[in-house]
């Protein structure tokens, strides 16, 4: 073969290597997804892969869940430090899931392998994936009422799962023995092994092709390049200090709301997130680890960037997250952390609220506002067998300056697909009897929020039904005079004998029961009485908004016999609304 190689690094070679490294991370992800067993990884894509240099800095990352933004960047260096860099050999694969050693919740299990080139450690490749069950007191592990991490499942410190590229059967067996769904987990773990192996092969090829020195130089340049891009993007946010407070419904144990405090400082090329003032950690599973908090703060900055900035160490250099140890946003051992992503999600939206005081035009109003973890477990159709099912549900997306929010979607850090109803019913002993938009659940505004989403479950056998969610007390907020949306509701037997529950629950349900999860809508943007009547007519025609709500909240009168806007009545009604709003403003402006 003719020689296309050259050892010098110029801007062209740099771009070529940068693309190769990102392609390698992407290939790891494709390998993981293709080989995975569980729906959660295969179709909901709850995993992420990354490549690190020999100093354990992220150089390329491929992921489909923004939640993983910081998980790997924070976790992998700590895993390597804990395990001991010196002990690593070629062919090793180190496994861990410990949230109190740099990780997130126990379900997110991370596999890291060192990459050696000619006997020198040159890089690391890592794959993290959400496993459907890691043992513990409740099926699905993360949803339940644990008080400490010991109830949440198997804690795996960094251990050598792979030696010489081979699975250590003893460790593998020990892990499988502690889980409710060993088949899926075994399959998914093997897919993670396939993924890191692909990464090792790819990196070895790349280094052989361009030479170690060139790659080392290229990595340095790549990270600096990203840092330059990030600085340029940060410069588009006005410098200043922005604060906000957010609240979660409760902790599941008591009904006491949880406070989140955010102070964001935008300086020259750096954004500092200070979470001092947030509540202390609690004896319940919604404590966030530092990696979770970091991930979701990082999301808010990344979402404000326009260019296709890569997420590598150059990006993380621009972010500092200060989270007081022992608080709900940086919980310490032995805090339970299974549902910590709920808290991290609240941190995320509170950060957006803080940014909204400076750049509302670039943001969205509040979204459905929680992850909404749902887990079911019980006896499967095969007598003696146990099943575990986990999913999360979409809802409304917040309205924007010139756009409605999206109906029924996963917002922000969350982007997992729904499980097909037919697949569920073919595999598990329960049924979905309704799955629909919730009319009138949007936050009203000049641009309206997205509609919330409802899913009703019925059961062939008794089950343990657990929900770890939020947003039943504090509805998704409106922006720039937009109104809040309908909050989430968690209702047992909604049609026969409705009984509302708080957002964190675990119930034993019978075959006669139906449980309805109703996610909130998204908040509105701008005053509702400025919404285009023709847009409202479309909403009414689609039965997304009722005629009554159009009139009462938006001031648009629709002649329901002819399905047209009554222009005159609308004008009168809206002038009134406008006057009222102005006089209200005058009153509230008075000292």
């Amino acid at each position: 073969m003719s020689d296309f190689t050259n050892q010098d690094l110029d801007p062209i070679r740099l771009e070529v290597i940068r693309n190769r490294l990102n392609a390698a991370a992407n290939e790891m992800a494709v390998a993981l997804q293709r080989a995975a067993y569980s729906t959660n990884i295969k179709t909901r894509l709850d995993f992420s892969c990354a490549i690190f240099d020999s100093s354990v800095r992220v150089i390329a990352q491929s992921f489909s869940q923004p939640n993983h933004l910081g998980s790997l960047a924070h976790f992998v260096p700590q895993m390597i430090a804990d395990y001991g860099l010196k002990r690593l050999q070629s062919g090793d694969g180190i496994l861990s899931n410990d949230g109190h050693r740099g990780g997130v919740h126990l379900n997110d299990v991370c596999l890291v392998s060192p990459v050696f080139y000619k006997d020198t450690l040159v890089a690391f490749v890592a794959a993290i994936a959400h496993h459907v069950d890691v043992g513990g007191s409740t099926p699905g592990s993360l949803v339940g009422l644990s008080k400490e991490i010991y109830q949440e499942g198997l804690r795996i410190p960094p251990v050598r799962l792979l030696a010489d590229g081979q699975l250590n059967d003893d460790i593998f067996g020990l892990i499988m023995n502690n889980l409710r769904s060993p088949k899926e987990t075994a399959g998914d773990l093997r897919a993670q092994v396939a993924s890191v192996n692909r990464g090792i092969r790819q990196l070895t090829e790349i280094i052989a092709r361009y030479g170690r020195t060139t790659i080392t130089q290229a990595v340095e340049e790549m990270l600096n390049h990203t840092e330059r891009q990030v600085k340029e993007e940060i410069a588009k946010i006005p410098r200043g200090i922005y604060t906000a407070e957010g609240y979660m419904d409760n902790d599941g144990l008591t009904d006491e709301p949880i406070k989140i405090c955010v102070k964001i400082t935008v300086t020259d090329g750096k954004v500092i997130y200070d979470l001092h003032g947030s509540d202390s950690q609690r004896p319940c599973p919604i404590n966030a680890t530092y990696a979770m908090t970091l991930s979701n703060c990082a999301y808010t900055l990344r979402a404000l960037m326009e260019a296709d900035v890569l997420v590598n160490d150059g990006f993380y250099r621009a972010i500092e997250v200060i989270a007081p140890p022992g608080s709900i946003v940086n919980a310490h051992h032995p805090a339970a952390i299974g549902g910590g992503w709920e808290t991290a999600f609240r941190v995320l939206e509170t950060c957006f609220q803080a940014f909204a005081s400076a750049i509302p035009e670039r943001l969205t109003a509040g979204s459905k506002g929680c992850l909404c973890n749902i887990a079911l477990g019980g006896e499967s159709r095969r007598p003696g067998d146990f099943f575990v099912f986990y999913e999360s549900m979409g809802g409304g997306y917040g309205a924007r300056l010139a756009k409605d929010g999206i109906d029924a979607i996963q917002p922000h850090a969350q982007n997992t697909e729904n499980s097909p109803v037919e697949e569920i019913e073919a595999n598990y002993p329960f049924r979905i009897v309704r799955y629909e938009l919730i009319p009138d659940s949007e936050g009203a505004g000049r641009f309206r929020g997205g509609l919330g989403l409802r899913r009703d479950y019925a059961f062939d056998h008794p089950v343990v039904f657990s929900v770890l969610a939020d947003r039943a007390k504090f509805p998704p907020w409106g922006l720039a005079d937009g109104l809040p949306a309908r909050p989430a509701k968690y209702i047992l037997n909604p049609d026969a004998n409705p009984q509302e529950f708080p957002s964190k629950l675990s119930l034993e349900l019978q075959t006669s029961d139906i449980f309805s999860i109703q996610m909130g809508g998204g908040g509105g943007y701008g005053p509702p009485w400025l919404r285009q009547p023709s847009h409202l007519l479309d909403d009414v025609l689609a039965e997304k908004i009722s005629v009554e709500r159009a009139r009462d909240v938006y001031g648009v009168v629709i002649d329901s016999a002819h399905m047209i806007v009554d222009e005159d009545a609308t004008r009168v009604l809206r002038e009134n609304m406008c006057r009222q709003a102005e006089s209200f403003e005058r009153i509230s402006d008075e000292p």
Partner: protein
Amino acid sequence: MSRRYRLGVDIGGTFTDGVLIDESNGTLQIDKVLTTPQDPSEGFLTITQRLAAEANLSLDQLHSIIHATTIATNAVLERRGARAGLLVTQGFRDILEIGRQIRHELYNLQTEKIPPLIPRQRCIEIPERMDHRGEVLLPLDEAAVAGALSTLRTQQVESIAICFLHAYRNPVHEQRAAELIQSLWPEATVSLSSEIAPEIREYWRASTTVTNAYVAPTVRTYLDKIEQKLSREGFDKSVYIMQSSGGIMTAAAAKERPIHMIESGPAAGVAAAAYLSELVGFPNALSFDMGGTTAKMGLIRDHQPNVLSEFEVGAHSGSGAGLVRGSGYPILASVVDLVEVGAGGGSLAWMDSGGLMRVGPQSAGAEPGPACCGQGGTKPTITDANLMLGRLNPDYFLGGRIQLDKEAAHTAINVHCAQALGMDVVEAASGIVDIATVTMVHAMRLVSVQRGYDPREFCLVSFGGAGPVHANQLAAELGIPTVVIPPSPGVASALGMLVSNLRHDYRVTRIHPLAEVELDELDTIWRDFTAQATDALMDEGLAEDKMLFNPYLDMRYIGQSWKLPISLPDDGLDATGVAWLKNAFDRQHEHLYGFSVPEEPVEIVNVGLSAIGLVRKPQLRDVPGASQPVAAARKCARQVYFAELKDFMECPVFDRHALQQGHVVEGPAVVEEMDSTTVIHPGYMASVARYGILILQQQ
């Protein structure tokens, strides 16, 4: 009168291409006219008449016309399909609105969900319910169906889709509802999910059925019009339509199931590559089709294009390789496996905010076009880079139809890239090509390595106007030993239409643990599919000895959420069949994913059959054997830049049209023809094989 001509017509966004072959001697005639977007059948007729006139034949001398068209895709992309309505199971009205509940852009706060093809007011719930075994939990409410029809009627609906839960398992409720529609409203077009895509996963099935209903009236009107126009011109044989699967079907079948013609155009290129590689004796090939805006990569194994069982229509292409998941409408139908990247001749080179040079995915398109084309473009493209590197001849682009302006290319690269990079223009131009190449390498790895195949065991069939310029470099990067370049690369993909077989695909979901499978039940399904396929192929005029049936099962480990197709052994399944299938599945799993778990039980998900009707392949016209030394084909020489040498080299330039079979051109060299340029790198040589096909290999 002898019917010895076959015509292919491919209607693309800009051009309508025609390719006519005289089967008595393999003479190919190729022409193109501008596409007529208002009524594409006009361009169809123009190209047909023009080619017929050039060949001096009347249309009744054609024995078939094969047509690739984007009519169905465009109806979706431009949202110009029918006013359609949807009947769904009670409780599931929002199946289309909810979709997959995901965003296709992770960090764009202004993102949107793709709007459903049928708005909510035309999605109507019907009380009825099946369970996953196909047992009725709630009988069909026939009065509700009648009520829904009158609602849809008042909304001027013309096409109705029905998708009830678990209809893949038991279609009776859908069928009964269709009967009611037939009796109450005979002129409505009806698409049943249990017929269009009887597979598990309700959103995918509904999306497929709805898309079918949405495009059906448009496709029917269009094909009727074409058939009428052709018949007025004296053509009374069948018009065949290129399917997404790379096979063809009659226009009559296409009107029933237009869903199979969604990706009609791109499939032709891979079919052409399969045919061309077979001509020169390679069963396994990678196809590389590089045009003005994108490069498309496909994989061919044992002469067959790799076919996938689902895709998305209307999806956005991302900044990386391939399409962005979740940005289009999912379709459950066979489709040729293609990865498309934004690296074509017109792809733009630009500097990002961090000071790195990037190439694509934005393209200068036909307008304003590359800077060197003088159509108003000022930004540098891959074509400009190739010109600066001496790889293209400014006086012989498209045979001299367009004079390329080297000065303009120089300025564009200098102003937009070289100055910022602190490099000279040639280095920057070489960089543009290198960066485009790495994108193409990644795309090629996705269709090969990621599917479990080693590109080094394949040949690279390269076509499209820009393909042969880059093929040698791409092959070297991937370690592919052989490059195959057909004559007239710019139009070679149209050849795919003339060589495709008839094809029909059937698939139905039946979830059973393999160990408990009743082979008799499967046999019944396969027999039924085979009978349907035989009827369809016979209707299309095929003799039974020209039919091939490939029965297969989609299987997975129990607990796994994906599936792999496993073909049955040639002699069918006997008592040991179950063990055979298990073994075959484990091996395939190992091959594709690098591991298998033989001790784990397996289940079947779908029962499927692909039926192929073999169409006689036309013979290409051969080129004469070498009667003169290769030097006779040498036109001139020029300086061409090679990145591996970091320098220009004096290269002989050959006229492809003057090359004869058996000639060998040693690299570095350039071979020019009307619609493309082949660059042969130092250390490589090109030999002229049969039909004038160029074979590049290392010296």
